C-alpha cells in the first residue's frame, strides 16, 4: 500500500518568491495536516484539513495557506518567502479528524 506521498522532494527558491507543496494522503484517509520541521527541531503544526475544511491552524503568519481537494489531496502555499522558511515540510494523513497520523517523507525547501 502506498503511504503518504509528497512532491517535490526538494525545492530551492529565493526570498520573496512563492512556493506550492503537494501531498497525497493514504488511500481512505480524509484528513491532512501540515508541519514545518526546522533542522534540529521537532515538527511544528501549521494546518489541519478534514473533509476539505480547515480544522486547525498553528502559529504561522498569513503567508502560509493551504487547501484540500475533493480527492483529499492537499496543497500548502507559502508566499513572500523568507530565509527562515527553509525547512522540511511534512504532510501527515489520518483516517478521521483525530486518529493517528502517518507522515510522508517531506519536501525540503531551501530559501536563498
Amino acid at each position, binding site marked *: 500500500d502506498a503511504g503518504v506521498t509528497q512532491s517535490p522532494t526538494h525545492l530551492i527558491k529565493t526570498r520573496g518568491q512563492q512556493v506550492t507543496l503537494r501531498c497525497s494522503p493514504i488511500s481512505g484517509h480524509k484528513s491532512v495536516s501540515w508541519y514545518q520541521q526546522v533542522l534540529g527541531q521537532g515538527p511544528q503544526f501549521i494546518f489541519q484539513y478534514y473533509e476539505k475544511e480547515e480544522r486547525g491552524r498553528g502559529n504561522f503568519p498569513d503567508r502560509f495557506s493551504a487547501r484540500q481537494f475533493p480527492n483529499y489531496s492537499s496543497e500548502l502555499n507559502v508566499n513572500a518567502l523568507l530565509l527562515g522558511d527553509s525547512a522540511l515540510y511534512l504532510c501527515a494523513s489520518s483516517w478521521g479528524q*483525530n486518529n*493517528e*497520523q502517518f*507522515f510522508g517523507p517531506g519536501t525540503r525547501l531551501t530559501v536563498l
Partner: protein
Amino acid sequence: QQQVKQSPQSLIVQKGGISIINCAYENTAFDYFPWYQQFPGKGPALLIAIRPDVSEKKEGRFTISFNKSAKQFSLHIMDSQPGDSATYFCAARVGAGANNLFFGTGTRLTVIP
C-alpha cells in the same frame, strides 16, 4: 514556549543496552502521547502511543511509561540495536479540536555495536 520538553538531546548506548528518553508536559488537556522515530531524510514514523488512563504500554522492545501526576512520560528501548540509531520525538495532543501534535525537540540516539 515549548509545550513538550524532551531530554536528553543526544544519547549513546551500547548494543544490547537500554535506551531511555524522557518527556514532560504542562497542559493537562493532552490526552494522547505518541512517540515517533525519524531516520535522516525521512518523515517521522509512529512507534508507539499511550493514553493517560494507562501507566505503561509495551510493544516488542519498546515501552512507554506514563506518570499522570508528574506529567511525565518516557520511552524505553530494550536490547538496543544499531538499527535503532535514529532521532526520537515525543509528542502530545489535546483531546478536542484539531489533530495538532506538539512535538518535543528530539533525541538523537546512537547505538554502538
